[in-house]
């Protein structure tokens, strides 16, 4: 039995070590991922264990890191690049969209892109500007990319092992606000890493979330239970492709849905989730799908981040709205 208590940061570190051990083509690269072990210590010890050829620091250039990864993949490697923070993936967007997401297509399958891009993501840690961004809507829209985000240490381990074993490019969004909470991780779990996951079964309303918002929704579910509202929490996990079947199954039962995310509302991934649910559950839905999201404003400074990120109150208001909707 390989279950162990560990933080998400440790689980990710473990998943990377196991990947490097099992896949001789796996490489880790990025800013400060080598000697320092990453600013979040996710790659800690790996350069020492696997050598400076397989785990290496790059100069400070995100487009360079991604462009290099595309070339390494063309040479048969499986690069696992890191961009240091969400907001610093922007300089790499051209390489990600026009190259990483398209090389397999352009080459008609001759150059698959087994590249797993790790992006410490989302807010909640009172960090400087551009350290709290949610890029899932951008990435999910890009053809050729798969996008996934773990909500807890178990998911972190399982999803990173799975993603790093794929021969398609995956954007792996790590909820940095959850790096340090510990939980049991079963390294030999037989749970499928595919699709969404019912994090808490319920019956009156479905909360859909990913990343750090899953934990918050679970808290909300606890609180709501005190008022007799039995909330189901779906941890979406895969943001592309989205598991429409699980969403449909859940909302068909609960007949109400609220989607929660940190990124700005307009054209956020919540719109896609809401649209999918509305399409699949049109006849069973009792209320329009609610979106409880960040606002259409730049991610604010620490003092205001609790005003920006969906908090328990705002999620509860969202639940209340779908429960109280009356045909007008």
């Amino acid at each position: 039995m390989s279950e162990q208590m560990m933080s998400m940061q440790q689980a990710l570190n473990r998943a990377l070590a196991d990947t490097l051990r099992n896949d001789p083509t796996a490489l880790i690269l990025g800013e400060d991922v080598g000697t320092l072990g990453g600013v979040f210590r996710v790659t800690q010890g790996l350069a020492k264990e696997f050598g400076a050829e397989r785990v290496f620091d790059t100069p400070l250039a995100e487009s360079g890191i991604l462009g290099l990864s595309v070339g390494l993949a063309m040479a048969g490697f499986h690069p696992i690049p890191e961009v240091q923070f969400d907001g610093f993936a922007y300089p790499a967007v051209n390489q990600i969209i026009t190259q990483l997401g398209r090389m397999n297509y352009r080459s008609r399958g001759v150059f698959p892109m087994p590249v797993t891009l790790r992006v410490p993501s989302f807010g909640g840690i009172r960090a400087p500007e551009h350290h709290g961004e949610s890029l899932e809507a951008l990435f999910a829209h890009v053809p050729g990319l798969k996008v996934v985000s773990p909500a807890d240490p178990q998911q972190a381990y399982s999803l990173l092992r799975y993603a790093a074993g794929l021969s398609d490019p995956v954007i792996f969004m790590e909820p940095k606000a959850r790096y340090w909470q510990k939980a049991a991780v079963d390294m030999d779990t037989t749970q499928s890493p595919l699709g969404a996951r019912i994090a808490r079964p319920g019956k009156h309303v479905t909360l859909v979330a990913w990343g750090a918002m899953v934990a918050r929704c679970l808290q909300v579910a606890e609180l709501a239970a005190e008022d007799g509202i039995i909330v189901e929490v779906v941890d979406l996990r895969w943001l592309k492709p989205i598991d429409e079947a699980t969403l449909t199954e859940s909302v068909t039962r609960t007949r109400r849905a609220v989607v929660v995310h940190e990124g700005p509302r307009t054209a956020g991934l919540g719109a896609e989730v809401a649209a999918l649910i509305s399409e699949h559950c049109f006849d069973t839905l009792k209320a329009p799908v609610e979106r409880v999201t960040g606002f259409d404003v730049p991610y604010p400074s620490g003092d205001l981040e609790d005003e920006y990120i969906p908090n328990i109150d705002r999620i509860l208001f969202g639940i209340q709205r779908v429960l109280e909707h009356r045909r007008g």
Partner: protein
Amino acid sequence: MAVQNFQVDDAGMPDAEELRQLFTLMVTVRHLDLSAVAWQRQGILPGYAPELGQEAAQVGSAFAMDKAVDFAFPTYREMGVARTLAVDMVAYMATHKATWHGGLYDPKVSRLAPIQAVVAGSVLHAVGWAHGERLAGRAGVALSYFGDGASSQGDVHEAMNFASLMKAPVVFFVQNNGWAISLPTEAQVAGGSVAARAAGYNMASVCIDGNDVAAVVNATRSALAHARSGAGPVLIEAMTYRRGPHSTSDDPGRYRSLEAERIDAGMDPLDRLKEKLLSQGIADEQFIADAWTAARAEEETLRADVMALEPRPGTEMFDYVFTEPTEALAEQRRNWREESEHV
């Protein structure tokens, strides 16, 4: 003209037989290039980016490659490179026929990466690929093609810095053809020389006459050998001239005069090689004539094949997105078939 530890001597000069081969290739490329423009006018191709005037730079540099191990990363204008590498030219022209972005040739077998439409888009790939070859213990060198215009892009800077730091086996082969669409090099490249940038990265570089095919072969061979030896990347700036329009939709008359064109273009690289072959007794008029005859014959078959090229089935839009397809995409594929192919 060599800088630092990189010396171009004459060791890599092509011999007589090679010069004849180069001439034949250049004639083939010239004829095919002019033909492709004609095909566009005839409605066979929706568009094309001529390499007219760059035959020496393209044929010479690709000729220097070791096809067993090296790999070239082209832009959208490297038809001469493709032909020299013996890429299937119907499959190559498929890009310009709007059949498939990147071409229908197998890039791995061809040693030519898919055609790249993003200016400077593949320069970093060359560095990554080269570094990978070294990690894997293979002897390959990457040949990264880009233009004077591309040199302005941030990616090129990042690529040069990475390559020099990693001592990656890359040869950056810059065709400075004087223009980026309507912008002349002097308004594009501060200082006027891309080769001069290399020193700032402690990288070997050389500026060569890109219209002298022998000089191009020689310099590229030296550079490949240098990079292969582990001594680090090299930048070659081949000075040449874009004698035609930027593409078949461009009208150079809007930004340069015919008179200026004539002066700036200098002597045609084909004429130069022909004169050399004849004056040095390496080939005779018959050889020259035969080369043109062969080129015409090749073009005729090619034209027929390009015309016969059918659109790819729409299902391929879906089939090459991922190696492991998703249910969502499979559903879109089904819907598309139902609504568009009525199946």
